[in-house]
C-alpha cells in the first residue's frame, strides 16, 4: 500500500526547459532531421531494407542446402559469402539497429515524457554514420572478389587469407571498416539513449515507474556501450593484420606450401574479444525484446505485468551476468579446458533470471482479460519460440553437452530460434502495436493474421526439426553435404522441407511489407490511443506526435505504467499522467 497522496510524489521542476531546434525546411524536417521520431523511422527503414538483402541471402543458401547441385551459380565461395553477410546483417545491421536505433529512438523520449533525445544533433549524426556503415557493407557486394565469406564470426587466420572468399580481396577490409563505422554511429546514439533515460524523464517518472520497454532498451544500450569496444578493437587489429601485415591474430602460418610473414599472434585472442562482445550482443537484442513483449502482454491482457520489480532486477541481472559467460561459445576452441567449469556454471545461472521473466509473462496472462489482437498473438508466439530456444541453450551452455553439438546444425537451430525468430516476432508485434501511433492508422488485420500464422508456424517448422540434423552430427557451414556418411536420404528430404518452409515464411514477409506501405494511406484511422494503453506515448495531444511530442506542457506522471483493471476505477486502464488515487493502488513502493 502506498499512502502518499499523488501530489507528494511529484517533485518540482529543477531546471527549465531548453528550446528545441525547430526545422526550417523540408530537408531539415524529413532528411537531416533532429527529431528522434524521424530518426527512428529512418533507422527502421534502412534496417528493413538491408534486412531484405539478408532475407534473399537466406533463400539462396536454403536453395543450395535443400536442392544441392541444382543451382550452378551457388559455388562454395558464393555460399560462404551468403551465410557471412546474412549473419552479420541480421545480428548487427538489422536487429541491433532496429531495436536500439528504431524502437529506442521512437519510444524512449515518448515513454519517459521528454520532448526529444538529450542531444538531438548527435542523434542525427548517429543515423547518418549508420547509413554510411550500411553503404560500405553493401559496396562489398560490388567489390572485386565480392564480400567476405569468413562466416559472421570472422575468425582469423582464415578471414584474411586467400582460401576464404574476400580474404585477400576487398571483402574483409570493407566488412571491418563497416563494423567500425557502425560502432562509431551506435556510440553516438547509445550515449543519447542512456542520458535521456537518466536525465530526460519528466516529473514524477521515477525509475521504478518506467515501462519495461524502456528498461530493456536502456539496459541493452548500456551493455552495448560496454561490449562494442571489444569488437571495435578486434576489428582495428584485424584490419592492421590484413593491411599492414602486423600479427595480432596471426601466428606462423604455412599457406599452400608457402611460409607467410606473420609470426607470434594469437587466433584465440580474437575469439575472446569477439565473444566478449558477441555474447552480450545476444542480450542486446533480447533485452529490448523482453521489455517490449512485457508491455504488449500487459496492455493486451488488460492486466498489470506480474512481478514488475522482479522483472527489472531480472533485466539488470541478465545484463550483468552476460558479461561473464562469453567463453561458452569457445568450449571446443582449444582454450584451457578448465575454463569450462566456470563458464558452464555462469551460463546456467543466467537461466534463472531468464526463466523468471518467462514465468512472469505467463502469469500476467493468468486471470487476465486476453484480447487476441495481433500484438498479443505475436507475443504468445514469442514466448513459445523463446522458451524453445532458451531451453536448447541449456544444452549448449552445459559444457560437455556442447562438445558433440557445437558447430553442428543444432547450434544454428538454437540461435535462430532464440535470437532470430523470437526477437523478430517481438518486432512484428511491436510494429502492429505502435504503427497506429507512428502513422495514425491501423495495419490491416486480415493481412496481419496471414502474416502471423505463416511466420509463426513456418518458422517453428524450419528450426525445430533442424535441431535433430545437428544431433545426427551434420555440421553447420557446409556448402554441400555430399559424400557424408552420416547424411541419410531422409535427412536430405528434411533439408528440402526446411528450404520450402523458408521460402514460404519469406513470402509472408512480402505480404507484411505490402501491409506496411498500403496501410499508410488506406488503413483504418486509429485515434490517439487505440489499445487503451497507459503509457505516455499514447497520451500525446496529436497522433502522430508533433515535434516536441507533448504540446505546451510536459505530462506529469502520477503512477506506474501498469494500472490496468484497477479495482474501483471506471475504465480498465489509468494512464500514467492521470492524477487521483483509485482505491487500492498497490504499485510497488
Amino acid at each position, binding site marked *: 500500500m502506498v499512502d502518499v497522496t499523488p501530489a507528494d510524489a511529484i517533485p518540482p521542476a529543477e531546471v527549465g526547459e531548453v528550446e528545441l531546434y525547430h526545422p526550417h525546411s523540408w530537408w531539415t524536417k524529413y532528411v537531416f532531421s533532429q527529431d528522434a521520431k524521424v530518426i527512428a523511422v529512418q533507422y527502421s527503414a534502412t534496417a528493413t531494407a538491408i534486412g531484405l538483402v539478408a532475407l534473399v541471402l537466406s533463400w539462396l543458401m536454403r536453395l543450395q542446402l535443400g536442392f544441392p547441385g541444382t543451382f550452378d551459380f551457388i559455388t*562454395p565461395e558464393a555460399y560462404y559469402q551468403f551465410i557471412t553477410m546474412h549473419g552479420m546483417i541480421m545480428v548487427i545491421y538489422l536487429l541491433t539497429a532496429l531495436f536500439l536505433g528504431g524502437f529506442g529512438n521512437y519510444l524512449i523520449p515518448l515513454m519517459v515524457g521528454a520532448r526529444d533525445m538529450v542531444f538531438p544533433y548527435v542523434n542525427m549524426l548517429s543515423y547518418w554514420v549508420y547509413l554510411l556503415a550500411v553503404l560500405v557493407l553493401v559496396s562489398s557486394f560490388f567489390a572485386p572478389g565480392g564480400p567476405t565469406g569468413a*562466416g559472421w564470426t570472422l575468425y582469423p587466420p*582464415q578471414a584474411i587469407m586467400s582460401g576464404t572468399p574476400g580474404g585477400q580481396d576487398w571483402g574483409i577490409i570493407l566488412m571491418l571498416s563497416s563494423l567500425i563505422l557502425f560502432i562509431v554511429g551506435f556510440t553516438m546514439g547509445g550515449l543519447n539513449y542512456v542520458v535521456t533515460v537518466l536525465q530526460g524523464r519528466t516529473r514524477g517518472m521515477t525509475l521504478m515507474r518506467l515501462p519495461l520497454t524502456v528498461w530493456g532498451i536502456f539496459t541493452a544500450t548500456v551493455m552495448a556501450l560496454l561490449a562494442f569496444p571489444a569488437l571495435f578493437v578486434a576489428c582495428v587489429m584485424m584490419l592492421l593484420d590484413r593491411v599492414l601485415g602486423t600479427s595480432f591474430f596471426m601466428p606462423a602460418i604455412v599457406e*599452400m606450401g608457402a611460409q607467410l610473414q606473420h609470426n607470434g599472434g594469437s587466433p584465440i585472442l580474437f575469439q575472446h574479444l569477439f565473444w566478449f562482445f558477441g555474447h552480450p550482443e545476444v542480450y542486446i537484442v533480447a533485452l529490448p525484446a523482453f521489455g517490449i513483449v512485457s508491455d504488449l502482454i500487459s496492455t493486451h491482457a488488460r492486466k498489470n505485468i506480474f512481478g514488475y520489480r522482479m522483472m527489472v532486477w531480472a533485466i539488470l541481472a541478465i545484463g550483468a551476468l552476460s558479461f561473464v559467460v562469453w567463453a561458452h561459445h569457445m568450449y571446443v576452441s582449444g582454450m584451457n579446458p578448465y575454463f569450462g567449469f566456470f563458464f558452464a556454471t555462469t551460463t546456467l545461472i543466467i537461466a534463472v533470471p531468464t526463466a523468471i521473466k518467462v514465468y512472469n509473462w505467463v502469469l500476467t496472462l493468468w486471470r487476465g*482479460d486476453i484480447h487476441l489482437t495481433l500484438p498479443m498473438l505475436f507475443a504468445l508466439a514469442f514466448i513459445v519460440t523463446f522458451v524453445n530456444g532458451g531451453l536448447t541453450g541449456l544444452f549448449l551452455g*552445459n559444457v560437455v553437452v556442447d*562438445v558433440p553439438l557445437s558447430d553442428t546444425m543444432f547450434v544454428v537451430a538454437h540461435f535462430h530460434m532464440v535470437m532470430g525468430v523470437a526477437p523478430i516476432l517481438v518486432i512484428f508485434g511491436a510494429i502492429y502495436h505502435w504503427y497506429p501511433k507512428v502513422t495514425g492508422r491501423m495495419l490491416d488485420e486480415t493481412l496481419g493474421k496471414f502474416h502471423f500464422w505463416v511466420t509463426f508456424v513456418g518458422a517453428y517448422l524450419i528450426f525445430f526439426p533442424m535441431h*535433430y540434423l545437428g544431433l545426427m552430427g551434420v555440421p553447420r557451414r557446409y556448402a554441400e553435404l555430399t559424400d557424408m556418411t552420416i547424411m541419410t536420404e531422409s535427412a536430405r528430404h528434411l533439408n528440402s522441407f526446411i528450404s520450402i518452409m523458408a521460402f514460404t515464411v519469406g513470402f509472408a514477409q512480402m505480404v507484411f511489407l505490402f501491409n506496411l506501405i498500403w496501410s499508410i494511406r488506406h488503413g483504418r484511422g486509429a485515434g490517439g490511443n487505440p489499445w487503451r494503453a497507459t503509457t505516455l506515448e499514447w497520451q500525446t495531444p496529436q497522433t502522430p506526435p508533433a515535434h516536441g511530442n507533448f504540446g505546451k506542457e510536459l505530462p506529469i506522471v502520477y503512477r506506474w505504467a501498469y494500472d490496468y483493471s484497477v479495482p474501483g476505477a471506471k475504465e480498465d486502464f489509468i494512464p500514467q499522467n492521470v492524477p487521483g488515487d483509485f482505491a487500492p493502488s498497490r504499485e510497488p513502493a
Partner: protein
Amino acid sequence: MAVVLVLVLIVVGSVLFHFLSPWWWTPIASNWDYIDHTIIISFWITGIVFAAVVLFMAYCVFRFRHREGNRATYEPENKRLESWLMIVTAFGVTALLVPGLFVWSRFVTVPSDATEIEVVAQQWQWSFRLPGKDGKLGTSDTRDVTADNPLGVAPKDPNGQDDVLVEAADLHLPVGKPVKVLLRSIDVLHDFYIPEFRAKMDMIPGSVTYFWFTPIRTGTFQVLCAELCGQGHPLMHGVVVVDTEQDYLAWLGQQQTFAQLSAPPQSGSANQPPGKIIASSLGVAANSKLSRSAQ
C-alpha cells in the same frame, strides 16, 4: 481460439517428432556414452519445462480470453509464488549442471595410459603422426614445414626420427585403447570431428590442443572438419579406421617413419614425392571443380 489449438499441437507435435522421427544420433563408437546420457537428461528436463509452460499458456488463453464483461484481476506481485518458482528453477538448473560438470571433469582428465597421437590439419586435408618405438612424439614447428617435411617435425629432434607419418591418408587405431589426440594446424583453424566418437576440438595454428577417447568398436569412421576453414571446408573429409589389435599392427608395419621419409630419395620411396605439398596447393582450384562435378 485457433491459437489455443496451435499451442497444444506444437507441444504434442514436438514430443511426437522427438520420439518418432528417424533423425537421431549415430550409433556411438567411443567411451563418451556419458555425454549421450547427459543429453538425455537435458531432453527430459527441458522437454517437461517446455510442455508445461506452453500448455499452461494455452490454458490461460483459453480460460481468460476476452469476453464481454470480463475484467482482469489486479495482482502486481506474489512474493511467495515468485520465490517458489525461482527455487524450482534453480533446482532444475542444478540437475542439469551437476552431471554435466561431472562428465566434463572426465573429459578433461586424460588417463595416464592413453597413447598420444597427433592430427595435423591444413587446407584441406588431414595428416597424422604416431610415436615410434620410443613412444614419444618429436617436437614440431610450423616454421619447419617444407615440401620435404610437410608436418613440420623438428629435423634435429631424436625423438621425432622414428615417428610414423601418415600424410593425407587414413588413420588406423586399435580398438579398446585410450588415445590422447594432439591437434595441430599449420594454416587456419580446423576442428577434428567424428560424429560417432561424439568428441571434437578445434585446432589452432601455433598451439597444440587435445582431447581423448577410447574407441569401443571396430569400423570405418568419417572425419569431418567442424570449424570453417575456407572454401574447401565441406570437402575436408578424412577416415579413421578402428582395427583389432592384429589388423592395427599389420597396418602399422606398412607405414614409414620420419627418418625414412626424409632420407634422400633412393630406393622405392616414390610413393611420397617431395612435390606433394605443391600438389595440394593446387587443390584450391581442383577442390572446387571437384565439388561441382561431384554433384
